[in-house]
């Protein structure tokens, strides 16, 4: 992993996932260390994503490193018409590592190929967001004690949701059972289902979340966006069928944990927040430890 960019979850192997999980656990136990002293991380956010940026910056600060960068394209030279290549080549002179978020798909891969320092993709349009996926893996491992043989419910927008696609790819290494819960318009795309067929992984599709969740080990909820529907009436009809409420969790398994990449709108009712099975806020904290693990691995500090 040393000196290697992280652009797509498929850049890492099953062994790499475990190394990151173990190191994230180490940072969870010792989150404040001075091992990044003298290192400069550039956070280039060509579109705003406050949560992801703060998570990275918190991770760097706790390890004694420094952060430079910009928070949206309007405050950078992109506005003056500079090409992505020139921005990256310039920033690579100032930093040891580049973390970038960009609305254009494939921009991170391209940046990693022109950059002289490693690049971490913090989201490239609808394509990839690998650090989110690794923190999801860490959260699953931490709450279940294993990644193997789990029953995973993916709920919400399964068509456009890049986090569910990456999670599906990564978890496919561990003999899972998948349950997909989504409206017809937002079903898991065929290309992913074909991949599962090839790997012999069982999956079931549902249009509603009912008693079927009582076998779940993980329920991973994502937001359904109104703008995904061509007919707003469809959205109005559906929006309440995908809300997870506390009373639905009554007969669920003891070890069940509910994950969400955040931000949440209304797809998990606030009455779930106090349930011990709610895990989305600790999940966000896991993001800091996971990013500490990823950055120190890439910089060769761990």
């Amino acid at each position: 992993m040393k000196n290697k960019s992280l652009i797509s979850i498929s850049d890492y192997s099953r062994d790499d996932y475990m190394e990151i999980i173990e190191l994230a656990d180490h940072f969870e136990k010792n989150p404040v260390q001075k091992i990044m002293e003298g290192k400069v991380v550039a956070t280039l956010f060509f579109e705003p994503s406050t949560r992801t940026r703060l998570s990275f910056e918190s991770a760097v600060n706790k390890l004694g490193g420094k952060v430079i960068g910009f928070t949206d394209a309007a405050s950078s030279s992109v506005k003056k018409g500079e090409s992505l290549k020139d921005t990256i080549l310039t920033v690579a002179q100032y930093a040891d590592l580049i973390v970038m978020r960009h609305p254009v798909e494939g921009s991170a891969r391209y940046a990693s190929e022109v950059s002289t320092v490693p690049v971490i993709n913090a989201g490239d349009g609808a394509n990839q967001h690998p650090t989110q996926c690794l923190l999801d893996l860490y959260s699953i491992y931490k709450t279940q004690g294993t990644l193997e043989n789990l029953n995973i419910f993916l709920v919400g927008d399964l068509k456009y949701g890049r986090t569910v696609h990456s999670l599906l790819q990564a978890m496919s290494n561990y003999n899972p059972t998948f349950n997909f819960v989504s409206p017809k318009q937002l079903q898991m795309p065929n290309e992913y289902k074909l991949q599962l067929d090839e790997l012999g992984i069982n999956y079931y599709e549902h249009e509603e979340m009912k008693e079927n969740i009582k076998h779940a080990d993980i329920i991973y909820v994502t937001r359904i966006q109104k703008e995904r529907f061509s007919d707003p009436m469809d959205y109005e009809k559906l929006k309440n069928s995908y809300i997870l409420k506390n009373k639905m969790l009554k007969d669920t398994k003891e070890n069940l944990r509910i994950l969400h990449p955040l931000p949440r709108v209304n797809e998990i009712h606030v009455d779930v927040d106090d349930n011990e099975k709610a895990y989305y806020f600790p999940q966000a904290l896991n993001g800091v430890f996971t990013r500490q693990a990823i950055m120190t691995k890439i910089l060769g500090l761990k």
Partner: protein
Amino acid sequence: MEEKKIKQVNALESGTVIDHIPSEVLFKVINILGLEKIETNMTFGMNLESKRLGKKGIIKISARFPDDKDLNKIALVAPDAKINIIRDYKVVEKKSVQVPEKVVGIAKCMNPKCVTNVETNVVTKFNVLKNNGHIDLKCHFCEKITDQQNIEIN
């Protein structure tokens, strides 16, 4: 038919004949191989009769022998093309084109939000996926698939 073909081929003293090109992609093939800049004699025909294709195109390049790597690029648009190598008026080698594993700088990614369609001077790059006789291209950058019927040549 066979006699006529031999005649056409024999018209070339030495060089390369690319036969069985679907007529509608003839100019794409010329484009992919960069033949518009060729300095030796080149002739081509289109809408010639063909039992297999209905109408076919053919290209005859004098005194040039493009290497297989270049010839294989045309498999994207003309997977059934046949290559004849001519020396001293004789066909000395016949070969088919092979679909390459990677396609660099020829095709266009169909995803309008892909970096190759947004930034200038980004060379496209695809991994070729063979899918029941179809050729699909998976973009190296945005990871989206451009299927065969949507392949556009730059």
